[in-house]
């Protein structure tokens, strides 16, 4: 039978102490401080960029007519996509009874949460009148007017807010038993008070566990239904329009798989340094990395198929406008972005066919970074190349990002990693109770 998912040397006590240690050690390690500092720097850049944006107006970005969506929407889709892996790992793999999710679901969920926050930021920032964003909410205003429910943006609004809420709940519910562990393990009284407050007095009663598991399973089911819907709806922002290059039925499936693709890439990007630095090799084993690499390879192939189909359709559908867009992507002014996307998203990941690549963490890290970049470029190509040359030749134009576009994008990375570092420092990055459960099962090693 397979090698165990947990290193053989471990016991209930040892896993508990090992994982809690990351949180409960008195002093923050130097590397953490560095990472946190850099993230904070980027975050402050985001704040500055936002203040300037609100003061001067959306014109400080590169958007124009015809290209009235730019970096903001690209980043939005990119971040939402990244979020998906977390939900997939914790929900779908749970339903599929995939034991290996245990070691990675916790920080994957955290990643989801923070990615959704970053994503949700952009639709608000990119509004011409951000102070009026709340008009998307159906509330009884004195104007007596309502949102327009046929707009994909309204669907988005509901999808993203639901996604955010459910991810938060799911994550928190998963945390409760571990918070109890921290409460009982903490040496400093204020720490145990805080954790105790968050644990809501969890004491691991059999009845509680019973209801807890039902709730968790149901949530997993809901989250699964959700994760499929969210990126489909995001893709409808494009597919429901009539622009050549956007108006296509293949978008929902190919966006969802793309999302999972980029999500897993991000999980690996986070997991590999994390396990190396905190010595969690016993929990996030090479088998874990291998499985994730396989998922990446699979979803990557689906995405590649998506690209293929787009081209096939533009040729087969003999719609002159669609065809022009395809040609323009390959030969137009933004062709470099297109070819780079193919390189990063399709060519390089093929190396995952080789076990040696999947087995070497640092090679995997490189591949997943390339996929992250590739997926961003994909969104760039979809948004920009379709907009800048559409139907009327007279209104063709170009799009150039400004330094504020870049500042906002990099700033959002800052927001993400700041949150991530705080999470690593103050909450268990691996689910302790689930790891113990894993140990309890036959086949898992115990002393």
């Amino acid at each position, binding site marked *: 039978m397979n090698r165990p998912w947990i290193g053989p040397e471990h016991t209930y006590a040892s896993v508990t102490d090992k994982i809690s240690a990351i949180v409960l050690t008195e002093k923050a390690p130097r590397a953490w401080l560095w990472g946190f500092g850099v993230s904070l720097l980027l975050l402050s850049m985001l704040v500055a960029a936002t203040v300037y944006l609100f003061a001067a107006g959306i014109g400080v970005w590169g958007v124009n007519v015809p290209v009235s969506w730019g970096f903001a929407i690209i980043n939005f889709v990119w971040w939402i996509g990244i979020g998906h892996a977390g939900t997939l790992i914790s929900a779908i793999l749970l339903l599929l009874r995939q034991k290996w999710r245990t070691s990675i679901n916790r920080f994957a969920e955290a990643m989801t949460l923070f990615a959704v926050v970053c994503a949700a930021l952009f639709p608000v920032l990119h509004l011409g009148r951000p102070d009026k964003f709340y008009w998307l909410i159906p509330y*009884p*205003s*004195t*104007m*007596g*007017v309502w949102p327009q429910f046929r707009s994909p943006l309204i669907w988005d609004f509901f999808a993203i807010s639901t996604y955010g809420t459910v991810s938060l709940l799911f994550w928190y519910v998963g945390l409760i038993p571990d918070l109890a562990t921290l*409460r*009982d393990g903490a040496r400093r*009284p204020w720490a*145990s*008070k805080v954790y*105790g407050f968050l644990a*809501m*007095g969890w004491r691991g009663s059999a009845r509680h566990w019973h209801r807890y598991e039902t709730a968790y399973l149901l949530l997993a089911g809901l989250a699964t239904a959700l994760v499929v819907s969210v990126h489909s709806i995001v893709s409808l922002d494009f597919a429901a329009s009539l622009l050549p290059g956007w108006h296509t039925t293949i978008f929902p499936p190919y966006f969802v798989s793309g999302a999972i693709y980029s999500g897993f890439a991000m999980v690996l990007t986070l997991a590999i340094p994390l396990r190396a630095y905190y010595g969690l090799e016993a929990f996030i084993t090479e088998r874990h990395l291998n499985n994730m690499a396989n998922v990446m390879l699979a979803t990557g192939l689906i995405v590649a198929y998506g690209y293929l189909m787009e081209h096939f359709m533009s040729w087969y559908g003999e719609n002159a406008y669609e065809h022009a867009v395809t040609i323009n992507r390959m030969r137009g002014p933004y062709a470099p972005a297109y070819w780079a996307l193919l390189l990063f998203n399709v060519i390089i990941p093929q190396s995952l066919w080789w076990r040696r690549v999947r087995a070497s963490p640092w090679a995997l890290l490189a591949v997943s970074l390339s996929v992250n970049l590739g997926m961003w470029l994909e969104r760039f190509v979809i948004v920009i190349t379709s907009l800048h040359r559409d139907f009327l030749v007279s209104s063709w134009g170009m799009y150039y990002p400004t330094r504020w576009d870049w500042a906002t994008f990099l700033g959002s990375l800052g927001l993400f990693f700041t949150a991530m570092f705080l999470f690593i420092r103050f909450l268990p990055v691996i689910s302790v109770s689930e790891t113990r459960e894993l140990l309890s099962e036959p086949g898992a090693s115990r002393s």
Partner: protein
Amino acid sequence: MAQIFHPFTNALSRASLVLALVLLLAVLVFAFKLYRSPYLTWAGVLLEQPVAFSHQHHVGGLGIDCRYCHASVERSAFAGMPSTKTCMSCHSQVWSDSPALEPVRDSWRSGRALEWVRVHNLPDYAYFDHSIHVKRGVGCVSCHGRVDEMPWTFRAKSLQMGWCLDCHRNPSPALRPQPAVFQMGWKPTGSPEERQVREWFSRHHDALALTNCTVCHR
């Protein structure tokens, strides 16, 4: 480890959960009320004016017709504000030396216009046309209230969009026969010409047309 929390924290924590929920609701209700309150709508708020002009006296007491001062109400979008000349046409004889009217006389002498504070003020992006409302049979009272009972003029209605829509969705009830438009204390009597006005309207009007955006916003 020993007990971290005191027994009463159980009650406390549950209470706080309920309280948070209640608080949230309270805030929402407050906001809802606030945006419809006189503080924001100015409805019923008395405003400082250069002259202590009383509609009650002029309309209720003397029975002067609205159109005597608001002359363009039937011809233009703007109902018209009486010029100093209009005031003086009476007040050069009546109350010609009352101190209350000094600002008017001063304006008449100097030619400097009186600066009234706008009581009924719509945002710049809302276009309201008095002439068509009057012509259609919407009484002054419907929007301006019983000015003949106002010793000091104030905004009678909120003038919020929702309030406009209430009438634009179904105008018939608000319509009067022409002669009644400028009457203050008029009450619907169910007379045939009344019914006729309403029927004519509902016959000649596309139900959705009056709530089209460009009817008021351009």
